[in-house]
């Protein structure tokens, strides 16, 4: 009870710790797991917790977008790829030991630098009094949409200089991203299409011959199998008949 009371008083912090632990913990799961499908599952949980952190920081719309596009779209795509290539040999792939050592050293030092930077600036590490902080239902979707069309409603209070220095909106990036998405759509569809020709058999007649040959082989095999099955079935039937008699 006492613990709960304390947790309530610091609810923002408690949820932060919960979500952060989930995000980083499942991130470790992605890193350490050898099974590629499990990695995908941990990645889903990690990114979901990240969305929780976004909600916590007051970015409701981005959090919902993270859930919808990232987790619902991108990761499904990834899992698609995993399942299309999930043959026995590729599900579990070991990492070389020297890779691990090198990556740990480089990654550890990188983490040190980043953490040092994160806690270095006094302005950033200034603690906020969040005991009474409530996530107000912020009306951010409309300003966000307007900013994408080039109108910044939120920076109007700023002085004129800020508006002039390129803070007037995101219409250009928005268009670039749209065109980019279109290009990606076409490009991905082009690259991932099934190739009908195999390089070895460019000649049409030879390909047809090859197909015919394959089909003949298959039918032969099928005939053999059916023969075996019927034969066995017949003999089994005979056997049961004789037993009955």
């Amino acid at each position, binding site marked *: 009870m006492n613990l709960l009371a304390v947790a309530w008083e*610091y609810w923002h912090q408690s949820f*932060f710790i919960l979500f*952060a632990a989930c*995000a*980083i913990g499942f*991130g470790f799961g*992605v890193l350490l797991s050898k099974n*590629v499908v499990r990695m*995908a599952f941990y*990645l889903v949980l990690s990114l979901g917790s*990240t969305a929780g*952190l976004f909600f916590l*920081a*007051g*970015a409701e719309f*981005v959090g919902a*977008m*993270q859930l919808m596009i*990232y987790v619902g779209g*991108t990761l499904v*795509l*990834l899992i698609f*790829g995993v399942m*299309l*290539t999930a043959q026995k040999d*590729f599900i579990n*792939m070991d*990492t070389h030991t020297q*890779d691990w050592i090198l*990556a*740990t050293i*480089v*990654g550890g030092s*990188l*983490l040190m630098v*980043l*953490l040092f*930077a*994160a806690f270095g600036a006094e*302005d*950033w*590490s200034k*603690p*906020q009094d*969040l005991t009474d902080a409530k996530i107000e239902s*912020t009306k951010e979707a409309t*300003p*966000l949409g307007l900013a*994408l069309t080039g109108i910044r409603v939120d*920076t109007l209070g700023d002085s004129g200089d800020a508006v002039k220095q390129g*803070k007037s909106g*995101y219409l250009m990036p928005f268009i670039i*991203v749209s065109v*980019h*998405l279109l290009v*990606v759509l076409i*490009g*991905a569809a082009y*690259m*991932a299409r099934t190739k009908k020709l195999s390089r070895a058999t460019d000649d049409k007649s030879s390909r047809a011959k090859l197909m015919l040959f394959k089909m003949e082989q298959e039918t032969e095999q099928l005939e053999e199998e059916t023969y075996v099955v019927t034969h066995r079935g017949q003999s089994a039937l005979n056997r049961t008949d004789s037993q009955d008699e």
Partner: protein
Amino acid sequence: MILIGTVSVSWYLAVGASLFVLGAVCMATKRNLLGVLMGVELVLNGANMNFIAFGSKVLRPEGSLGLDGQLIALFVIVLAAAEAAVALAIALNFYNNHNTVDVDRANELNG
């Protein structure tokens, strides 16, 4: 409790940095092409976390990036989707041509 009382931008940055490093190490160590892709996603999320933290009015009442942070985060999410689509197409192409998803085997251009 001392630790809990002081959630600031720095802690969000720390989480972002951890995700970034985890993703980077994941990219470096995984041999599965799709594992590398997952590392990229983690890296992008780590970066996104920073944008959200700097843009949050809850964490930084004065001097926050405001909507700019959220907008950049949105762009990152959208571009990540595009990146995943292209990378997946490359991965599938690679798999079709080489029958493997081991990135160490993609060494044809290695003179």
